[in-house]
């Protein structure tokens, strides 16, 4: 419907919001309202303390009825915040919501300028521009798009697992895609979790098992999303299933094939044990891997390198589950919403060479130590160092790679707590002297501070000072053969040398290495550090700027398990809101071709990234498929005839805005 109000005289209602002190202290709202009243077409010009409040909205509705307003303008905060609020209010007042325009005089004016005179002048310019723009507004219908009920969850760590279970239990069909051969993520690698010291595998594996057995969850491990098309409610996803060379239906995880592999022992660094042990080319990541299916690594398996392996694995398997001819498979699915729970990677400690990681064998990262103390780890839970010794003294260095201009500026939030946990576990396993070198102790969660107190009672030594270096330079005979940690103990004001047998680096959390590629594929943004960007850090932490796509867990920012689970639940709830409403409103800012004006030049055909424009060969004119159009307006600007118009952003509207912004200048100088 493209009706317009050009035939009737303008009756504009203009409202200036004080926003408490936020706008009114810098912009002279009274003068602004009075000025706007003098502009042609303005019937009402008011100022009010809080336009977005109920009385504020009712004021608009009352005026619409009583004064037969046919346009409404509100000068207040950012349209990104309240455009929807006011459009709804206008609609309730009986006027088409698209006859509304918003002027941003808070984020763009009162919050960033201190000169009240200049700010008020700017507000007047912006208001005048809006008054001229609304003349060209047309009555439009909100687009409604159906939401497909299925959900895609990308990433099978604790956040992905929880989100999938929540949605599946709500009766929705979930595709959980995970690129490792098993779900579980980083949590599966931990020994115990703070502060309860629950065994991580014990609390995780029941959930993993639920995922496997849930009728509503399709679990695709060793798989990656390769293509994303479509829009909210109607995503078309291609998932690449990498070949395990094992028939998933037949394998029962007995692991006979692994035992009989021609490699007598593993030669490839085991990823699950962070390289502390070796695995064979045929392996299962860890005993409780889900699905409990073996995988053959094509990069290290002899059969793929030379084609002449005896294939003792095939002999060993009495279920005939091994299939070297398996190929990569592309699965295409349709979902309505997507939740990204791709997690994090740890900071690479070799970037801080003065801590000796990679140089001295007994310097470990925290993740390596998690595996060392784990009963199912490479040393069976016994704390044996790389040189075979048992440590009698251990130094744990906090903030490795974090809170530092030279590496990562942010605090990784979990390291203090897990360092305390490791201190406790190390003392439990070895009775060694443990020294924690910290800058601050961040123990903000429930029972976290109490956990810290407990450690003080366990005689863990805490030294407040950022460690300068770890070296093997011995000054006294007692330091021979040890690693010396040098740090200033800021509480007592001296530089200390602490000789230890083992150094543990509390490495920080970073975005995954391919997070930029992933976010481009899903068309969301990242914040400056590289974590996925949330729509609002306080009020919308799991939404993204792309409708229908949600984020949860460490991919949004460093966080611990309870927060990841909470966000996963939140994301699932957001997805459910969309699915259960069944449809979503989209802004009707699509483009359309005025066929009489189209010259058939074809310039627009290749411009659209969504292939929404096609050519009607019979009429020799361009035609835009409204369902595919996302409203970017590129074709509008490209059309040489000006035949393509964009709802809500028509050329006339923008030209009148430009004119309105500059009018005063024209009259001033001439």
């Amino acid at each position: 419907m493209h009706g317009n109000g050009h035939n009737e005289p303008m009756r504009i209602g203009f409202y200036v919001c004080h926003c408490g002190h936020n706008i009114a202290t810098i912009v002279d709202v009274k003068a602004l309202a009075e000025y706007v009243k003098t502009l042609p077409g303005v019937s009402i010009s008011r100022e009010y303390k809080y336009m977005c409040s109920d009385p504020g909205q009712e004021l608009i509705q009352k005026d619409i009825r009583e004064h037969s307003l046919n346009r409404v303008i509100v000068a207040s905060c950012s349209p990104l915040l309240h455009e929807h609020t006011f459009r709804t209010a206008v609609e309730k007042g009986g006027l088409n919501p698209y006859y509304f325009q918003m002027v941003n005089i808070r984020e763009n004016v009162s919050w960033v300028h201190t000169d009240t005179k200049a700010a008020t002048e700017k507000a007047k310019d912006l208001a005048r521009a809006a008054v001229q723009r609304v003349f060209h507004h047309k009555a439009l219908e909100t687009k409604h798009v159906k939401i497909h009920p299925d959900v895609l969850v990308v990433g099978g760590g604790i956040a992905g697992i929880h989100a999938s279970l929540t949605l599946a239990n709500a009766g929705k069909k979930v595709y959980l895609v995970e690129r490792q051969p098993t779900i579980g993520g980083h949590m599966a690698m931990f020994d115990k979790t703070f502060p309860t010291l629950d065994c991580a595998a014990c609390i995780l594996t029941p959930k993993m098992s639920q995922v496997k057995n849930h009728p509503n969850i399709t679990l695709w491990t060793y798989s990656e999303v390769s293509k994303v098309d479509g829009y909210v409610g109607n995503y078309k996803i291609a998932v690449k299933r990498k070949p395990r060379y094992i028939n998933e239906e037949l394998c029962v995880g007995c692991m006979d094939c692994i035992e009989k592999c021609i490699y007598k022992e593993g030669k490839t660094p085991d990823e699950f044990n962070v390289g502390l042990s070796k695995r064979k080319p045929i392996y299962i990541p860890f005993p409780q891997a889900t699905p409990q299916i073996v995988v053959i690594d094509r990069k290290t398996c002899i059969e793929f390198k030379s084609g002449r392996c005896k294939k003792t694995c095939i002999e060993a398997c009495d279920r005939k589950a091994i299939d070297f001819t398996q190929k990569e498979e592309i699965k295409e699915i349709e979902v309505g919403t997507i939740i990204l729970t791709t997690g994090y990677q740890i900071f690479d400690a070799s970037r801080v060479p003065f801590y000796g990681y990679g140089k001295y064998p007994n310097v470990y990262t925290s993740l390596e130590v998690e595996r060392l103390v784990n009963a199912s780890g490479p040393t069976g839970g016994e704390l044996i160092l790389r040189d075979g010794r048992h440590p009698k003294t251990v130094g744990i260095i906090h903030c490795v790679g974090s809170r530092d201009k030279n590496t990562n500026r942010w605090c990784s939030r979990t390291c203090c707590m897990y360092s305390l946990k490791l201190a406790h576990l190390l003392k439990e396993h070895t009775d060694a002297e443990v020294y924690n070198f910290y800058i601050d102790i961040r123990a903000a969660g429930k029972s976290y501070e109490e956990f810290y107190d407990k450690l003080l009672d366990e005689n863990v030594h805490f030294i407040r000072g950022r460690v300068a270096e770890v070296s093997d330079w011995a000054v006294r005979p007692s330091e021979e053969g040890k690693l010396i940690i040098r740090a200033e103990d800021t509480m007592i004001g001296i530089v200390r040398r602490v000789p230890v047998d083992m150094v543990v680096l509390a490495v920080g959390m970073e975005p995954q290495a391919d997070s930029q590629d992933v976010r481009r594929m899903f068309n969301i943004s990242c914040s400056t550090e590289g974590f996925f960007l949330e729509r609002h850090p306080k009020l919308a932490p799991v939404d993204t700027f792309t409708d229908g796509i949600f984020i949860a867990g460490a991919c949004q920012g460093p966080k611990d398990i309870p927060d990841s689970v909470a966000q996963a639940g939140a994301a699932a709830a957001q997805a459910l809101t969309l699915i259960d409403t069944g449809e979503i409103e989209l802004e009707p800012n699509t483009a359309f071709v005025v066929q009489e004006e189209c010259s058939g030049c074809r310039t627009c055909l290749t411009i659209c990234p969504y292939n929404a424009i096609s050519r009607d060969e019979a009429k020799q004119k361009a035609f835009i498929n409204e369902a595919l159009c996302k409203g970017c307006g590129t074709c509008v600007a490209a059309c040489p005839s000006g035949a393509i118009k964009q709802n809500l952003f028509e050329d006339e509207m923008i030209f009148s805005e430009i004119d309105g912004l500059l009018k005063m200048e024209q009259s001033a100088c001439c």
Partner: protein
Amino acid sequence: MKYLSFPGCSLRSTGRAYEESIVAVAKALEIQYEELKDWNCCGATSYVSIDEMDAFALAARNLALAELQSAEGTINLVAPCSACYLVLSKTERYLEDYPNVSANVNAKLNKAGLHYNGRVEVRHPLDVLVNDYGLENIAKRIKYPLKGLKVACYYGCQVVRPFSKFDHSHYPVTMDKLVQALGAEPVDWPLKTRCCGGSLTGTTQEAGLRLNRLLLKEAQKRGADIMVTCCPLCQHNLECYQERINRIYKEKIELPVAYFTQLIGVALGLSEKELGMQRLFKKPSLEHITHPKGEMANAW
């Protein structure tokens, strides 16, 4: 590529061997190494503590002179002494980043008919030899590979901090790579960039001696036959007080300390006199390398 050399005061006095060896090596490698005409003292670390702007002007005079002495384009001004290197680098950086410093300093320079236009890049000979000239090219010209020689590379602090222009500020490797290319074995030790005390050996001697003792003792403990440095004050501190250190601290330190350029010169087959080897307090025994008689001797 042509390089302008800024010798600085030390290379004309206690650090004479450094200049002699660098000039000899440059000649042998056919590197154009021309002295900056009418250069003046860079002001070192002392002047800048008194008056920053004047200190910049003093150092900048050299930069302006360098521009006069060269054709258009970027000028590579090589400062072997680490303190000169740092002072000149800092001056170059500040003149580039801060327009008011540039205005102030150029106003002073203008009074002497000079002006600095920002074309100079201050380089260290270690950087030039390893990164510009290239280790493969040096290796091609080696006459006597320094086989079996264990070398502790000492960088000191000023070439790597605060500006780490050509190497890592905590774990530099340029000199170690050079030593390896010469056929010797660099000793891996953690005190490569630990301070030698600078002028403390002159002012608060006990502090200076203590620092040097730690460096020498560790290098010797790790099996070094010789230590090489790239700074004349470091060389002086490390070499000249070993008897005193042994007396006070009851140590048995006996470690020759030379300039890295002297080591290059030995490997290239240059004469002792050319490299200023006679100026070293403790002459390293390198005859088995420079005058090999059949099998290489194992130890000294």
